[in-house]
C-alpha cells in the first residue's frame, strides 16, 4: 500500500465549525507529521483553540474529514481521542485541586491491584513521570491546591505524558512556567520528538516558537493563512501574518522621568512566611514592575495591598496617609482608589455566564447608583465608554462575557477597574495567555494611565514585558525585594541574575539579606 504524497500522521481536510453566526473555523486544511514540532500561531479568536478541540475530540466539526495514520477518524469524545493517542494539555488547567498530585496524574486509569487502586504504584508512577520532566521537587502526596501555578502546570504536563501520547498538544502550556521549567519542557519535547511523537505547540511567546518549532501554521479569523518551515520567515513577517496589519513599536516609549513624589508607599510589609519586610514606593505617573521567579511573594504583595490578606504587618500609605486595608471594598475607596486586576480572569476577574455589561459595572455600581437603585442611563453610558476606550470587540453588551476571546475578556477585567477611576492600579500578570495585538494595546493603555497620573504596580512573568514597559522593576525573592532596577539596569541579564538571587549587581531594595 502506498502512502499519499505527504506522509502526514494527522491530516485535516476542509474542516469548518460554526458557533451561532460565527465561523470559528472556515474550510481549514492542516497536516502534521511524526517526530515534528508543529507550531500553531494566531491571535486569540483566530481559531486555534477550536482546531485543538476538534483534534482532541472535545467538539465535532460541522464539515470536513480527519485522518490519523491513514485512517479516517471521528472522535465522539475526548476519551476516544485519548485512546487513539491524542493527548492535550489545555490552557485551563484540568487538575482537581483537592486531590493529591499522584491522584491527579493517574485520574483516568489508576494502577490497580486486585481491582483496587494501588496507591504505592500510583505514587511511584507519579514520581517517575515528574522526574522525567525534571520536577523531582514536587511531592506526589501534596494536594494540587497547595502548589503554585507554575508547579501545577508541570503536574499537568506529567499527567499528559502518563497517557503515552502519539500526538501531544500543548495549548499555552508554558504560559505560567518559570524560565527554568521552560528549559525542562524543551528537553522533554526533544525526547518525545526523537521517539516519533507529533507535537502541536501553541504559544504566544515568539522565542519559544523559534527555539522549538520545525513547522508553523498561522491562523487568522478562522482561516488557515500559511504553513512554513522553520527559518523561512522572520519574526516581523510572522507577526504580520498573524495580525494582518503592520505593527509599529512593541512598547510605547518611556518618558524620561525623574523619580516622582511617592503616591503609594509600602513600609516593612510582612505576612505569614510569604512576605518579609517589603518596602517599596510607586509615584504618580510611574509604572513599577514586580519580577522574579514565580511564587516569591509577588501575588501576596498585590493581594495584601488590596485588602485580601488578613493580619498583614507593616504600613501602607497613600499620599502620606496611613491606610487600614481590611477588604477589597475598603481598598477600592481608600485614598484615590486602589484597583486590582487579578491573576486568573476566569475565576477571580469575571462572572463568565453574566453579560459583558454586568461584569463591567460590578466594581463601580455604587457610583452609578442613586441610593441603592441602579441608574440604568448612567450604567449604559459608562459601559459604552469603557467598551470604546479599550476597544473591546463585542457583539452586544448583553452577550455573556464567556463568548469573548481571552484577550477581550482581559480587557473587560481591566475596563471594569478603570471605571472606578483608581489612583493606584495593581496588575497580576495581566497579559498571560493573550495575543500579541491585545498585549500591545494593554502596554499602551498602562502608559496612558500613568501619564494621566495613576501609580501602577505590575507583576509579570514575562521579562520582555518588564523590560519594555516599566520605569522601575523590583525583583522579589523568597518574600523579599532583593533588588530594584532602574533605567539601563532593567535588562534581561540583571533581571535573571537578581531573580535567581545571584549576588553581584547593585541592590537598594531590601538591605537585609538572609534570615
Amino acid at each position, binding site marked *: 500500500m502506498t502512502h499519499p504524497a505527504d506522509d502526514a500522521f494527522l491530516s485535516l481536510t476542509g474542516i469548518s465549525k*460554526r458557533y451561532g453566526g460565527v465561523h470559528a473555523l472556515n474550510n481549514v486544511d492542516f497536516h502534521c507529521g511524526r517526530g515534528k514540532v508543529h507550531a500553531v500561531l494566531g491571535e486569540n479568536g483566530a481559531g486555534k483553540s477550536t482546531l485543538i478541540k476538534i483534534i482532541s475530540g472535545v467538539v*465535532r466539526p460541522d464539515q470536513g474529514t480527519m485522518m490519523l495514520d491513514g485512517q479516517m477518524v471521528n472522535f465522539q469524545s475526548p476519551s476516544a481521542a485519548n485512546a487513539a493517542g491524542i493527548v492535550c494539555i489545555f490552557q485551563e488547567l484540568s487538575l482537581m485541586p483537592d486531590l493529591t498530585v499522584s491522584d491527579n496524574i493517574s485520574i483516568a486509569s489508576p494502577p490497580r491491584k486486585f481491582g483496587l487502586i494501588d496507591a504505592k504504584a500510583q505514587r511511584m508512577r507519579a514520581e517517575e513521570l515528574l522526574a522525567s520532566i525534571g520536577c523531582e521537587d514536587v511531592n506526589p502526596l501534596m494536594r494540587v491546591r497547595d502548589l503554585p501555578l507554575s508547579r501545577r502546570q508541570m503536574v499537568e504536563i506529567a499527567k499528559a505524558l502518563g497517557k503515552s501520547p502519539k500526538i501531544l498538544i500543548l495549548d499555552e502550556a508554558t504560559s505560567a512556567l518559570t524560565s527554568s521549567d521552560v528549559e525542562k519542557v524543551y528537553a522533554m519535547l526533544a525526547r518525545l520528538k526523537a521517539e516519533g511523537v507529533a507535537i502541536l505547540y501553541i504559544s504566544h511567546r515568539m522565542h519559544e516558537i523559534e527555539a522549538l518549532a520545525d513547522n508553523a501554521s498561522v491562523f487568522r479569523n478562522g482561516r488557515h493563512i500559511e504553513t512554513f518551515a522553520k527559518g523561512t520567515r522572520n519574526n516581523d513577517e510572522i507577526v504580520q501574518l498573524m495580525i494582518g496589519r503592520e505593527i509599529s513599536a512593541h512598547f510605547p516609549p518611556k518618558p524620561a522621568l525623574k523619580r516622582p513624589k511617592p503616591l503609594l508607599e509600602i513600609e516593612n510589609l510582612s505576612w505569614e512566611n510569604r512576605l518579609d519586610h517589603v518596602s517599596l514606593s510607586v509615584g504618580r505617573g510611574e509604572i513599577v514592575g514586580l519580577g522574579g521567579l514565580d511564587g516569591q511573594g509577588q501575588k501576596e504583595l498585590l493581594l495584601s495591598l*488590596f485588602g*485580601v490578606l488578613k493580619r498583614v504587618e507593616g504600613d501602607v500609605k497613600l499620599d502620606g496617609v496611613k491606610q487600614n486595608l481590611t*477588604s*477589597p*471594598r475598603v*481598598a*477600592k*475607596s481608600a485614598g484615590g482608589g486602589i484597583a*486590582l486586576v*487579578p491573576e486568573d480572569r476566569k*475565576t*477571580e*476577574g*469575571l*462572572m*463568565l*455566564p*453574566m453579560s459583558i455589561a*454586568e461584569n463591567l*459595572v*460590578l*466594581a463601580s*455600581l*455604587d457610583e452609578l*447608583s442613586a441610593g*441603592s*437603585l*441602579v441608574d440604568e442611563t448612567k450604567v449604559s453610558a459608562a459601559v459604552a465608554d469603557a467598551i470604546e476606550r479599550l476597544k473591546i470587540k463585542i457583539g452586544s453588551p448583553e452577550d455573556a462575557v464567556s463568548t469573548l476571546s481571552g484577550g477581550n475578556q482581559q480587557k473587560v477585567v481591566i475596563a*471594569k477597574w478603570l471605571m*472606578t477611576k483608581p489612583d493606584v492600579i495593581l496588575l497580576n500578570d495581566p497579559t498571560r495567555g493573550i495575543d500579541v495585538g491585545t498585549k500591545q494595546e494593554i502596554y499602551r493603555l498602562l502608559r496612558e494611565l500613568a501619564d494621566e497620573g495613576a501609580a501602577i504596580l505590575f507583576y509579570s512573568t514575562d521579562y520582555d514585558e518588564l523590560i519594555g514597559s516599566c520605569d522601575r522593576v523590583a525583583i522579589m525573592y523568597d518574600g523579599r525585594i532583593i533588588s530594584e532596577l532602574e533605567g539601563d539596569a532593567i535588562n534581561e541579564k540583571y533581571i535573571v541574575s537578581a531573580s535567581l538571587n545571584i549576588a553581584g549587581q547593585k541592590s537598594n531594595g531590601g538591605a537585609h539579606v538572609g534570615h
Partner: protein
Amino acid sequence: MTDMTRFSPLSRLSRDDKPIAIAAMFILVILIAGTCYTLVRFGNAPLLTPAYLIQQLQIGSFLGIIAAGMMLVILISQIDLSVPWTLAAGAMTATAVGGEWALPAALGVGLFVGLLNGFGVAYLRIPSMIFTLGVNAVMRGLMVAQTGGFAPQTAATDLMRYIAAERTFGVPHAIFVWLAISIGMVILLRKTTFGRAIYAIGNKEAAAYLSGVATRRVTILAFVMCSVAASLSGVLLAGYATKAYQGMGDAYVLPAIAAVVIGGTNILGGRGRYLGTVVGVILIVLLNSVLSIMEMPEAGRQIIYGLVIISMLLVYGRGEKVAS
C-alpha cells in the same frame, strides 16, 4: 450532541425565559387535563371558575412568599433548610404573644433566625446546607420546649385572620401580600445594587469579593429576607388555619425549593428570574389540587409530584447543553 441548527419557537427565547415558558405551558396542561377529568367524571368544569382559581392563588400565596425568600438564598448558591421551623416558630410566636404585637414578634423571630443563618454562612463559613439544618433542629427543640410545659395561646388574632383569610372585592388579602412582595422582589433583583450583587455572588463569589462587593453583608441580608419571609408566611398560615401548630411548616421546604428551581433558577445560583418562581409556585399548587380532585391516593400523588419535578429539570438541563 443535538443538532445546533434545529429551530423551534422555544429556542428563540433567552435561556432564562425558556423554563418559564415551559412551566407556563405545563400549567395549561394541568388545567386542561384536570378539566377533561371533571367533565367526564362529574360533567362540570370547576377548575376553570374564577372562584377556584382565586382559591388556588390564595393557597399559593403562602408558598409563594416562602419561595421568594428561598430564591434569594438559592441565587447566592446557598440553601435555607431552616424554613419549616422558622415558619412554625413565627406562627407560634405570633399566636402566643397575641394582640397587636403578634406580627412584629413573629417577624422578629424571622429576623433573628436569618441573622443567625447569615452569620454562620458568611462569617463562620459553614456550608449552609448543614448550618441551616442544624438551626432548624434547634428551633424545633425550642418550640417543643416552649409548648411542652404549658399550653400557650394558639389561636390566631383577628388581624392575622384579616390578612390571611378575609377578602376585599372577593380577593383574599393574602394574595395582596404576595403581590406586594413580588413587586418588591422584581425591583430588588432588577433595579438595585443589592440585586446585582446577589447574581454576582451566585456566579463567582471570589470575583465578586475582588470587585469590592460586600459579599458578607449581602449574604446575611439574603438569609434574613428568607427567614423573615418564612415567618411572615407562618403568620398568614396560622391566620388561614385559625391556629398555629407544631410541624405546620414541614410540608413547605421542598415545594418552595422545587418552585424556585422549576421556575428556571439555577440550583447552583447566579441565574434565574423572579417571574419563574411565581410560575413555579402556581404549577405546584395546581398540580397538588388537581391530583387531589382526581382522588389520587397519597402515595400516587407523591410519585407524580416527584416525577414532574425531575422531568421538568431534565427538559431544562437538555436545553442548557445545547446552548453551551
